């Protein structure tokens, strides 16, 4: 084949090529290592010097031009390819997204986490204690001796044991004593957990529920300190400045004792926290030096807090495990 034939054939082939693959094939056939142009250059050895020079130049010019032509056609085809692809793969952007199939954490878990996080940010550690406990920790150590009329406030579920009567803790306050026995002040802790009462179940009571106990002891911890911390907790928890009321209360394990009410959005006072300054009897129970320490303790009903947060009006919803309820959180 002579060079002019090659030129003609090459351009015909290029014209015919309709996709990138075909173009690459043409490139190989004409300009490739084993391509037609190479064959022509190889066959030059038996030609005269002048002819060799002429054909050589001609071939070079063709190579340059044809390379450009190839590139140009490639670009056109690429453009065609993308515009076709764009059309073919156009998505219906109005179709609904696929739902992520995650489960749901119980609202009590979510509120407890939030509460723990707030108190942790205020430097409180989180501790726990047993749910089946001795009468001593649940009552006596907390200055509620047998026969104390205020024991009626805690209707108790009892368990027979060879080590004397045991009980299901009626509040999280015994964790105070367990913790104090093993730790020296200063410290600040919260103790969340499940508690039990011998009570009928209704919209606002159950025989099994959750409390969060708090305890901070140091050398000069005061009522004013408690006020600041509990106010901070409410503000963070409800995400707004909450109006709070502190009034006289009574708990055998705190002296002075108070109740904290907060004002709901409807302007109603809601009793939410029982609190007070740790009673000297507890320092004695824990084996601390007399009148060396001062501190406050408080108890919050986790169920109450959760109900308030989500506007739940029936406590039973938290414990009847209805997934139609849990899946809302």
């Amino acid at each position, binding site marked *: 084949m002579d060079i002019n034939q090659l030129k003609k054939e090459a351009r015909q082939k290029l014209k015919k090529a309709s996709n990138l693959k075909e173009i690459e094939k043409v490139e190989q056939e004409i300009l490739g290592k084993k391509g037609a142009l190479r064959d022509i250059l190889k066959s030059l050895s038996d030609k005269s010097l002048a002819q060799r020079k002429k054909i050589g130049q001609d071939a070079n010019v063709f190579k340059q031009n044809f390379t450009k032509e190839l590139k140009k056609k490639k670009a056109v085809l690429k453009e065609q390819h993308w515009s076709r692809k764009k059309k073919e793969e156009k998505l219906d952007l109005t179709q609904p997204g696929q739902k992520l199939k995650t489960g749901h954490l119980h609202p009590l878990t979510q509120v407890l986490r939030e509460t723990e996080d707030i108190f942790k940010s205020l430097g409180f550690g989180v501790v726990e204690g047993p749910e089946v406990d001795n009468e001593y920790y649940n009552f006596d150590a907390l200055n509620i001796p047998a026969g104390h009329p*205020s024991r009626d406030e805690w209707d108790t579920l009892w368990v027979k044991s060879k*080590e004397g009567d045991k009980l299901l803790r009626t509040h999280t306050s015994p964790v105070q004593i367990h913790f104090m026995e093993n730790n020296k002040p200063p410290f600040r802790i919260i103790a969340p957990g499940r508690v039990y009462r011998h009570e009928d179940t209704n919209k606002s009571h159950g025989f099994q529920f959750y409390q969060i106990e708090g305890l901070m002891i140091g050398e000069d911890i*005061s009522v*004013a300190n408690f006020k600041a911390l509990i106010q901070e907790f409410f503000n963070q928890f409800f995400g707004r400045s909450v109006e709070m009321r*502190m*009034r006289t209360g009574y708990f055998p394990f705190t002296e002075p004792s108070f109740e904290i009410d907060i004002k709901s959005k409807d302007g109603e006072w809601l009793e939410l926290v029982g609190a007070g300054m740790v*009673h000297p009897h507890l320092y004695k129970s824990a084996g601390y030096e007399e009148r060396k320490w*001062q501190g406050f303790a408080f108890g919050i009903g986790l169920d109450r807090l959760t109900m308030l947060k989500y506007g739940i009006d029936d406590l039973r919803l938290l414990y009847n495990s209805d*997934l139609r309820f849990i899946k809302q959180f």
Partner: protein
Amino acid sequence: MKFSYSWLQKFFKKGLPAPEKLVTLLTKYSFEAEIDGDQLELDILHNRAADCFSYWGLAREIATLTGRKLDVPDFSLPKKKAVPTNKVVSCQVKEKDLVNRYNLQYIEGVSVKKSSSKIQKRLENNGLQTINNIVDVANYVMLELGQPIHAFDLDKISGSKIIVRSAKKDEEIITLDGEKYVLQKGMLVIADKEGPLAIAGIKGGQRAAITSETDKIVIEAANFDSYSIRQTSRQLGLRTDAEARFENGIDPHLIEKAQNRMAHLIKEVAGGEVSKERIDFYPQPMEEKIIELDLDYVSSLLGVKIPSTKIKEIINNLRFEIISQNQRQWKVKIPTYRLDISIPEDLIEEIGRVYGYEEIEPCFPKASLIPPQLNENRFWQKRTKDFFQQAGYNEIYSFAFIGRDEAENLDLEKEDLIKISNPISQNYEYLSPYLLINLLKVAIENRKQFNKVGIFEIAKVFWEDEGEQKEQWNLATLLTTAGEHSQDFIEIKGLIESLFTQNGIKVWLKEVEAPEKWWQEGQILSIKADEETIGYLGQLNGRLIEKQGYEDSVFAAEINFEKFKELALEDQEYEPISSYPALYRDLSVIVPGDTLIEEVIHEVSRTGGKLLRDVDLIDVYQGENMEGNNKSLTLRLVYQSTEKALNSEEVKKLQKKVFKTIKQKDWRVRQ
């Protein structure tokens, strides 16, 4: 307790604040108060019952809060006097430990009739029945002053002798309202030689009751041990207004006031002559307490500097007496009616509440910055709960109890369960030893609404071990789908495996016999880590589930969460990524049909040693071309070193070792 606003007003010359204002004031400073019609409903705190469980006491409290002057009731005694009480009746207190004070006053020549309408109305408004003028006045004084009073007909006291003693076993008494009570030893009674006349501090008996014929009466005002009265009342299931006052304790010095007031009122409503002297058993007269008050401690504990003049004013308003003032160390005398005040903190509470907690400015504590310790249990619970939630499972808070029927149906050993002595009902008689028992109930209930139910819970479980109560955090998860079967098993198995892998824990799952009846025999795996079983995974017993009216398969796992946490806490070592190429060799092994896949993988891995980085199962074939019951497992072996590029010669050597092991196990390599 209900209080009439108008009666309360009688104790003040000056008008009381309006009811709305009064309840706000009381709620803030004393105890919760509400308006109920023309009455005040008060929730008097236990520690204040001793001094506020009466109109007089409440008036005193209001006087403290409002600075109003109290108008004292008429305690003056009539002039004409009858013989001393001990001339007509004698008294013996046998149970000296249970009687703080016992006081009798004789009145002769009374005429018993109906009370005036004023007294009748006051009693009725306060929930008390009217009986006759004598009994009514006794109740009136109890309401007014808080001291329970009882009147006996002297002529009906056999032998004219009153004995305060413990009841005999099964001794009987018929009370004023005609009810019969069987008494037990230890219960305190007021008796004569024939038997009990009254259950001390709780209720009077019929035998010596005041009737229209009565003309000589003996009036009892006593102070009994509050614990004893409370016990008796609980044992008899008998609660009365008198008992409610005794069980919270009463000031023993109130007796003089109450007897004087009785004498005054009886003279007014029933005539008669009051005795010159009373019988008074009062071996240890109560003294006023002296509290040492450190003013610096007051401001330190309350967190506010209250001027000492203000503190003095508060103490005076409370009717306490400052008996000495040495710089900032004061001595304060507390009236006997304030039984609740015995330590400095009690007095500081009084100062704090009357000053007003509202007045205390909030102030963040000055405390050293000690980072709190990480609670590992809470940390791992959070991670695990998040894991299940992200895997599509829903969290449940189930009850910690199981019923008697359940314990029986599931063949649970009763002696291994913690039994509640006073359960709420038979359905909550034992503490649950496994979370799955209640999770199953929850799942069945929810399947009525959902086709697929996947749930989990982390909570305490309870059991008894040789009489000792144990509790432990467990994790349980459960999956059930309408109709489905094999897919659920793979899902929950994969879930549990991922849970362990993600937390860097190596576990072995091994088929075992069902450890409890609720697992399906032959469909249960133990979860082992460090040679210790830490949980089970498998299918729940279909027969038992069917009894609960449920037909679909249920797959579940229950794991000792405390062990899981310990294992997760162990250091997880980083495995370096090798920069040398891996060599892959596929291998088919023919094994008997009942050989466990895990065993084959385990044997191959073990033999391959450190350089065999991974063994993956690619295919399982069990079918026509296999001889007998055999199955063929295709494994992909990945050889890689972290130190050098392995050559095929080295891999060949290792492969030979693997072949040898397979041969030793009587398995065959398929060529």
